[in-house]
C-alpha cells in the first residue's frame, strides 16, 4: 500500500490536524470525538447544519465547513460512518438556538448512527431534523435494498441549504429546501480503479486492465455492472442516460451540472468528460444554468467520475449563487 501516512489507525486525526492548521480562519477541529466546527460556531439565531460520514471522501464534509455552508462535519474512520457521540457533540457545539438540521447520506451505518445522535440531542431539548440524501440512480430496486445511496447530490445539498441557513431561513424552511434538493437531484458514477483503505491495505475491488465499474458507490463498492472499458463518450453517455430517465429530466429544464472526480482522475480527463456531458444536454434541449467541475466527493485515490444533475428553480439558483467561504468551495467573498 502506497500512502503518505504515519499509521493507518491515526490517518483521520493526523489529517484533521493539517486541515485545522491550513484553515484556522474558517474552522476548528476537535480531535476526540472527531469534529470539524465552523470557527465562529455557534452562530446565534442561525439554523445549524451538521453533516458527516466516513473519511476518505475529502473535501466532503470538512472542506465544506464555513460561512454559507456547514456548521459542523463529523468525520468517521475511513469509509466508516461517524459514531453517535461525534454527531451529538457537534450538534451541541454548533446549535445556535434556531435548531439543527442533519444532512445524512443514505447508508445503513450513517442513518443508524445519526439517528441515535438525533435521539440524544432531542433528549437535550434541541430541535433536530434529519434529511437523508439518496441520489444515486445506480441503485435500481430501492425496495429490495437499503435504498439509494447518497453521492454527488450531497455537495449541492450542503451548498444550497447552507445558503438558506446563512440567509436566516428558519428550520422549517431549511428542511423544506433540503427536501426540494433531494427530490430534484440525481447522480451516477463509474470507476477505472479501486481505492485502497489504509487499514485494509489492498484495493477494495479487483478491476481488470480493460474493465470499468459502472454505477459504483463512493466506497469502491461494486455498482450496476462491470463492463469493458470504453471511450469517454461512452462513459459519459452511460452515466447521463440513467440520470436523465430517472427524474426524468426533460427538454426545457434548467439544471446544474456537476462533474465530479472520484479523486484519482486528473482534471484533464474531468473537463473532457464535462464537455461531453454539456454537449449531450444541449442536444436534448436541457439548459445548463450552473456547473461545478472538480474533485468534491471522492473515494480516496479512486480514478473515476460521477455526474450529478439538479433541476434548478429560481430559489435554488439564488441559494447556489449566494456567497460561500469554505476550504473547498468559495465565491462571492
Amino acid at each position, binding site marked *: 500500500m502506497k500512502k503518505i501516512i504515519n499509521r493507518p*489507525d491515526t490517518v483521520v486525526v493526523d489529517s484533521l490536524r493539517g486541515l485545522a492548521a491550513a484553515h484556522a480562519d474558517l474552522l476548528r477541529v476537535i480531535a476526540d*470525538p472527531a469534529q470539524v466546527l465552523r470557527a465562529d460556531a455557534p452562530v446565534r439565531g442561525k439554523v445549524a447544519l451538521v453533516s458527516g460520514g*466516513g473519511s476518505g471522501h475529502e473535501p466532503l464534509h470538512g472542506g465544506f465547513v464555513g460561512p454559507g455552508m456547514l456548521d459542523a462535519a463529523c468525520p*468517521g*474512520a*475511513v*469509509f*466508516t*460512518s*461517524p*459514531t*453517535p*457521540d461525534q454527531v451529538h457533540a457537534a450538534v451541541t457545539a454548533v446549535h445556535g438556538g434556531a435548531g439543527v438540521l442533519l444532512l445524512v447520506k443514505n*447508508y*445503513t*451505518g450513517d442513518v*443508524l*448512527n445519526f*439517528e*441515535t445522535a438525533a435521539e440524544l440531542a432531542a433528549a437535550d431539548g434541541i430541535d433536530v431534523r434529519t434529511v437523508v440524501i439518496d441520489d444515486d440512480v*445506480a*441503485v*435500481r*430496486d430501492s425496495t*429490495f*435494498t*437499503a435504498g439509494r*445511496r447518497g453521492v454527488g447530490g450531497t455537495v449541492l445539498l450542503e451548498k444550497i441549504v447552507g445558503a438558506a441557513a446563512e440567509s436566516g431561513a428558519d428550520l422549517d424552511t431549511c428542511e423544506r429546501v433540503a427536501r426540494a434538493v433531494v427530490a430534484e437531484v440525481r447522480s451516477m458514477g463509474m470507476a477505472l480503479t479501486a481505492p485502497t*483503505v489504509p*487499514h*485494509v491495505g489492498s484495493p*477494495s*475491488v479487483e478491476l481488470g486492465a480493460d474493465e470499468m465499474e459502472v454505477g459504483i*458507490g463512493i*466506497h*469502491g*463498492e*461494486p*455498482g450496476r455492472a462491470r463492463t469493458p472499458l470504453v471511450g469517454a463518450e461512452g462513459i459519459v453517455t452511460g452515466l447521463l442516460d440513467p440520470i436523465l430517465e430517472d427524474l426524468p429530466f426533460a427538454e426545457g429544464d434548467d439544471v446544474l451540472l456537476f462533474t465530479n472526480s472520484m479523486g484519482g482522475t486528473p482534471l484533464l480527463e474531468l473537463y473532457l468528460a464535462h464537455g461531453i456531458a454539456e454537449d449531450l444536454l444541449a442536444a436534448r434541449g436541457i439548459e445548463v444554468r450552473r456547473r461545478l467541475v472538480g474533485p468534491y466527493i471522492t473515494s480516496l485515490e479512486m480514478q473515476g467520475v460521477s455526474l450529478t444533475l439538479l433541476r434548478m428553480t429560481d430559489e435554488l439558483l439564488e441559494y447556489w449563487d449566494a456567497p460561500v467561504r469554505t476550504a473547498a468551495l468559495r465565491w462571492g467573498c
Partner: protein
Amino acid sequence: MRCDTAGVIAGVRRAAEAVAAHRDELVDLDKAIGDGDHGENLKRGFGFVVDALDSSTFDTPGAVLKMVATTLISKVGGASGPLYGTAFLRAATLAGEAPEIDVVAALQAALGGIVDRGKAVVGDKTIVDALAPAVEAGLGGATLAGIADAADEGAASTVALVARKGRASYLGQRSAGHLDPGARSTAIMLRAFAGGGS
C-alpha cells in the same frame, strides 16, 4: 443457562480476542460485498471494550453489557456499531441489577434490538441470519456450543442469499455466493462466548 459477572466478562474477553483474531477474515468478507471495514471496526471497538475491562471494575452482568453497548455504539461506527450496540444495550436492560443473566433471554433481547433498529428479517443476508437461529436453538434447550453451532449454520446459509439490507444489497444478484460479514462476526462471537474455538 445462567451466567454471572465473571462469566460475562470472560465471555466478552474471548469474543474480543476472537474478533481480533478474525479481523482479516472479516475484512476480506466485507471487501467482497461491502466496503472492507467490518473486521477493523469491530476490532477497534472491542479493543476499547477490553481497555475498559482492564481499567474498571463491574459489579453486575448488566454493567458489563451496558459498557460494551455504549463502547460499541460510540467507537465502531458503520452499520454494525449501532446494531451490535443496541443488541448489547437490550441485553443490559434485561439484565438490570441482577447478579446473573439468563443467556438465552439476553440473546433474544439482543435479536429484538437488532431487528428494531435494522428492520431486517431472516433471509436478508444480515446478522439476523446468524442470531435468529441461535436464539431459536437456545429456546429449544441447546447448550452454548449448540447455540454457536446454530449461529455457524445460520451464517453459512447467507452464502446463497441475495442481500436486501445493508451495503451488500447494492450488489443485487452479485451479493450471492459470499458469506455475510455480519452474520459471520455474530457466529464468531457466539462461538467465543461459548468458550470454544471457531
